[in-house]
C-alpha cells in the first residue's frame, strides 16, 4: 500500500502567461537599439523602475535573467565562467551568473553567447546599481561588470532601508530617510537625462507613479483572495505572478495582468476549486528567495495536501491607504515615502510586542489572516543580505508568537550544485508528518 503521489490539482491559467511576459522583457532589451531606446542594467525594488519607464529606458533585469538561466537549469556555464575570474561560488549567484554571461559576450566581441536562454539579454548602455543600502552584491556587481563593460557608465544609488531599533520612534526619523531617498532619486534622474539626452517629463512620471499605486492596490486585493479555503492559488504560482509587479511596475500591462488574475481567482473561489484536493495544511512561505531550478517542489508540497496561500517573498507592495502617505505633488517624494513606509508600517506593531522584530510581525499578521498551520523558510546560501537572519526570524517567531511547525529549507537561488531533490523531498515529508502531529495534538 505505497502512498500515492498526488499531483497539483490546479494552477492558474493567468500564471501560465508569465513565461511570455519574461520573454517579452528580455526581447525588449534586444529590440531597444532598433527603436533608439537606451537599455539600463537595472535592479529591482529600489525606486528606479518608474523613472526608467517615464524616460523610455528599457530595463535589463540581471536578477531575472539569472533566474531564467536557473529555471532552465542552464546557469552552470556562466557560473563557471565567473569562477574562472575568481568570483567565488559563495558570492551572490544572481550576480556571478550574469557576470559570467557578460564576460562571454565581451570575449566574443559583443556577440550573443550561443544558446543564451530565451535569446539572451541586450547589452546595456548604462548600469543603474542600487542595493537598498543592504544588499552589497547590488553595488559590487555593477562595479565588477564595469571591468568587462568598460564603455558602459555606472551610477550607483541606494534607497535607505530604514533601520529598526525597538527603542527609537521611527516616526521622528522618517522624514530624514525620505530626504535621503529623494536625493538619490533626483541624482538618478540627472544621470538618466545625461545618458539619454532627454529631459524628464514630470507629468508623465506622475502618471506612471499613479498607475503603480493602482497596481499595488490591485495586487493586494487579488492576493487577498487567496485567503479563501481552499486557496485558489499558492506560492508555486506566486513565484511567477510576481513578475509584472516586480519587473514591470508602472506599465499598463502589469495592471491588466492583475485584473485578469483577480477575475480568475474569483471564478475559482466561486467554483470551489483549490490548489490541493483535499487541502490539509496551510503554510506561509515566510522568507527567502526560491530555488528557481526547483519550483516543482511546490507541487511536491501540494501533492501532500500542503498549500501556500501566502508568501512574504516578492509581496513587494502594500495597500496604499494603509501606508498613510503624506500628500505631495512631487512624484519622487511620493516614491520615497512609499518606499520608506512600505517597511516602517510594521515597526509600531513590532515595538508593541516585546522581543519582536518587524519582519516577524509581518509573518504573524499573514499567519493570522491566511490561517496558516506552519511556516517554511528557504535559506539560499549565496544570498547573505536577505537570508542571513532567517534562523533568527524563525526563532523569534516561535518565541514571541506560538509553538508552530517550522521548516528551514537549504539551497540556492541559481547554483543547482547545492540541491538534492531526494533529500529535499525527505525534509518535506518529515515536515508534513510534523504538521500532522501538531494537528492531531490540537484535535485531542
Amino acid at each position, binding site marked *: *500500500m*505505497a502512498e500515492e503521489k498526488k499531483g497539483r490539482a490546479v494552477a492558474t491559467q493567468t500564471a501560465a502567461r508569465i513565461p511570455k511576459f519574461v520573454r517579452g522583457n528580455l526581447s525588449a532589451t534586444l529590440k531597444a537599439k532598433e527603436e533608439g531606446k537606451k537599455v539600463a542594467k537595472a535592479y529591482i525594488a529600489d525606486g528606479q523602475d518608474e523613472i526608467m519607464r517615464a524616460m523610455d529606458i528599457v530595463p535589463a533585469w540581471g536578477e531575472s535573467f539569472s533566474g531564467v538561466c536557473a529555471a532552465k537549469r542552464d546557469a552552470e556555464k556562466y557560473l563557471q565562467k565567473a569562477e574562472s575570474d575568481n568570483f567565488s561560488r559563495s558570492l551572490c549567484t544572481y550576480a556571478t551568473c550574469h557576470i559570467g554571461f557578460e564576460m562571454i559576450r565581451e570575449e566574443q566581441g559583443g556577440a550573443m553567447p550561443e544558446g543564451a536562454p530565451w535569446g539572451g539579454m541586450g547589452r546595456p548602455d548604462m548600469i543603474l546599481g542600487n542595493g537598498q543600502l543592504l544588499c552589497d552584491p547590488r553595488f559590487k556587481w555593477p562595479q565588477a561588470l564595469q571591468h568587462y563593460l568598460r564603455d558602459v557608465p555606472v551610477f550607483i544609488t541606494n534607497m535607505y532601508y530604514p533601520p529598526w531599533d525597538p527603542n527609537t520612534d521611527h516616526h521622528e526619523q522618517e522624514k530624514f530617510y525620505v530626504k535621503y531617498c529623494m536625493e538619490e532619486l533626483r541624482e538618478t534622474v540627472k544621470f538618466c537625462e545625461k545618458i539619454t539626452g532627454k529631459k524628464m517629463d514630470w507629468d508623465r512620471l506622475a502618471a506612471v507613479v499613479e498607475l503603480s499605486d493602482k497596481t499595488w492596490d490591485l495586487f493586494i486585493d487579488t492576493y487577498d483572495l487567496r485567503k479563501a479555503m481552499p486557496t485558489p492559488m499558492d506560492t508555486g504560482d506566486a513565484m511567477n505572478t510576481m513578475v509584472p509587479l516586480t519587473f514591470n511596475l508602472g506599465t499598463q500591462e502589469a495592471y491588466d495582468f492583475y485584473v485578469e488574475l483577480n477575475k480568475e481567482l474569483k471564478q475559482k473561489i466561486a467554483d470551489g476549486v483549490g490548489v490541493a484536493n483535499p487541502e490539509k495544511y496551510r503554510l506561509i512561505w515566510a522568507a527567502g528567495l526560491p530555488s528557481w531550478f526547483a519550483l516543482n517542489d511546490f507541487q511536491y508540497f501540494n501533492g501532500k495536501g500542503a498549500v501556500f496561500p501566502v508568501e512574504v517573498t516578492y509581496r513587494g507592495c502594500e495597500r496604499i491607504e494603509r501606508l498613510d502617505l503624506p500628500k505631495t505633488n512631487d512624484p519622487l517624494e511620493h516614491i520615497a515615502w512609499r518606499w520608506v513606509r512600505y517597511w516602517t508600517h510594521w515597526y509600531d506593531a513590532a515595538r508593541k510586542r516585546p522581543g519582536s522584530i518587524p519582519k516577524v510581525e509581518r509573518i504573524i499578521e499573514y499567519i493570522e489572516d491566511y490561517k496558516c498551520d506552519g511556516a517554511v523558510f528557504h535559506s539560499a546560501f549565496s544570498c547573505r543580505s536577505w537570508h542571513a537572519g532567517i534562523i533568527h526570524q524563525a526563532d523569534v517567531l516561535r518565541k514571541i508568537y506560538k509553538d508552530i511547525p517550522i521548516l528551514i529549507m537549504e539551497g540556492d537561488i541559481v547554483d543547482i550544485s547545492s540541491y538534492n531533490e531526494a*533529500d529535499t523531498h525527505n525534509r518535506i515529508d*518529515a515536515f508534513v*508528518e*510534523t504538521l500532522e502531529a501538531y494537528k492531531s495534538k490540537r484535535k485531542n
Partner: protein
Amino acid sequence: MGDIKYYAGVDIGSTMTKVVIVSDRIETALIGPTGPEHRKLANKVMEDALSQAHLKFEELSYVVATGYGRINVPFADRQITEITCHAKGLYSLLPTVKTIIDIGGQDSKGIRIKDGKVINFVMNDKCAAGTGRFLEVIADSLGVALDKLGEVSLQASRATPISSTCTVFAEHEVVNQLANGEPVANLIAGVHESIATRVYSLVRKLQIEKDIAITGGGAKNTGLVKALEAKFGSPVLVPPEPLITGALGAALLGKEKCERAILDGYNPTRSKEGLQEAKLFS
C-alpha cells in the same frame, strides 16, 4: 499465537538495514548491511527477523518502512520518515529525552521532541563532514577498524586539531599529521572533536533542551560520544541498541495506527505485495 498482534518496522539506511518486530514488547531486532547489492534485499533481512521471532510474514498486522530507502519496500503498508520514527522509537526507550542527535552513515540530524512527537528538526545532508562516512574514510586512512576508533581515541594525550572541514581534505590533513609523527590516538580524538563541533553547530539551531540522546552508528563510538558531551556540556544518553531506534519507532507507529483504526471501527488494510525484493530499476 492467540490474539497477540505483531508489527514490523523496516529502516533502510544508507549503510545498514534494520528490522524490528514488536507486540507488547520488542520481539526481535535485526541489523544487516544495505550496500549496493543489498539495497533491494530488505525482504531478506525481514525473513531473517521473522525466522528469529518464529513468525510468518502473514502474521504481521502492519509493516512500516522508514529511512532513505523506504519508498523501495514493496511489502510495507506505509512509509514514514526516519525523523518521526527516530523520535517515536527513542521516546519509547528514553522518555526524558528532548533532543536527539542522529549520526548516520551519510547524514547527521538533530531532532527536538515533545511527548514523543517531533517539534523541530535539522539535517546535514549536504556534506560528509559530521557523518559516519567521515569516520569510515579516516578509519581507512589510519588503518584502524571502524568499531575500534572510539576505544583507540580514549588513549589520546590530546586531540590534534583538524582544520579542514571537507572530508577529502581532512583525510589529507590526517595523513600529513601521521607522517609528521602525530600519534594515531590523538588524530582520532581530533577527528571526533571536529565531528562534534560540526554536529553541535547544526543541532544548536534547535534550541537544545536536555536530556540529550544519540542514535545511529555514531552512537557506538565511545570517543565520539565523549567529544559530543564535552561540546554540548551535558551527558549524552545512548540507548541500548542505538541503530534500531528508527525501525523500532516505525513498528510502534504501525501499532499505534492499527490500534487507533480498530478503536475507530475499522481494520487497517495490509499491502497485497508479498515478501519480495524491491524492483529498483523496473
